[in-house]
């Protein structure tokens, strides 16, 4: 039981706990905040697993940008908390069944696979080396992803435009 494993278990507890809280909150803002905690936890796990660059990226992009975007939308749409019915039965029961089977299979897979008993050794990926590796080997993927981001940008812009024009234009926008 090294220090690292203790840290790992604590972090795992944090992640699982806050995610559980996040998915069971009626208030959307609360759910997002809990999820931010969870992402902080996984960022620290990334650091523990020797990916500091990714840890930082997680905090910046995931917790910082994406969750904040969620908060913006929640606040903007003036969603009233407490409207939806929590845990509707006809959705919850099949999900629970599926989940139980999933856990069973998961456990089965993990236990039966000999490779899962290999203990992880500590290592560290230097961000500079990491950057060189990526731009060296996966430069094409970088380009494609940036194109993707461009497309997403344009799409979000178009979708979010509020039409003040005549109904014909509104109908055309609705088809988008």
């Amino acid at each position, binding site marked *: 039981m090294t220090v690292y494993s203790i840290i790992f278990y604590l972090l795992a507890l944090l992640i699982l706990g806050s995610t559980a809280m996040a998915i069971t909150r009626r208030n959307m803002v609360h759910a997002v905040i809990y999820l931010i905690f969870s992402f902080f936890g996984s960022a620290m796990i990334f650091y523990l697993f020797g990916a500091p660059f990714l840890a930082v990226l997680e905090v910046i992009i995931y917790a910082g940008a994406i969750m904040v975007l969620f908060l913006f939308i929640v606040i903007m749409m003036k969603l009233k908390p407490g409207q939806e019915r929590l845990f509707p039965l006809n959705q919850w029961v099949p999900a629970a069944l599926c989940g139980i089977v999933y856990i069973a299979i998961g456990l089965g897979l993990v236990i039966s696979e000999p490779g899962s008993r290999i*203990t992880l050794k500590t290592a560290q990926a230097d961000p500079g080396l990491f950057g060189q590796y990526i731009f060296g080997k996966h430069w094409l993927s970088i380009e494609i992803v940036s194109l993707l981001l461009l497309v997403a940008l344009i799409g979000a812009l178009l979708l979010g435009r509020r039409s003040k024009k005549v109904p014909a234009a509104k109908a055309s926008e609705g088809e988008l």
Partner: protein
Amino acid sequence: MIVPFGHVLLLAGLLFLMGMVCMVVRRSLIMILLGVEIMLNAAAIILVGSSLLWQQLEGQSIVLFVFAIAGAEVSVGLALIVWAHRQTGSVDPRDFNRLK
């Protein structure tokens, strides 16, 4: 020496399950998207863990792209939700049941 890889797998598996449950059970479009985010996060954990297992950088690079794609997807998704909310006035997925 950190932990056996199996534990990492289990953690990520549970996280994925929670994300799936959130996606399927909650009656709000935003929560569906949130579930997607959780699932992506779980996948990222696995990838980083396995890159550590094999001491290679491939896993981490995939995670980079995962982040980027997650960002793009969230933005478009939220824009769609906003648009849908404007059209029908609610975010309950049952109200989008137009294929009756």
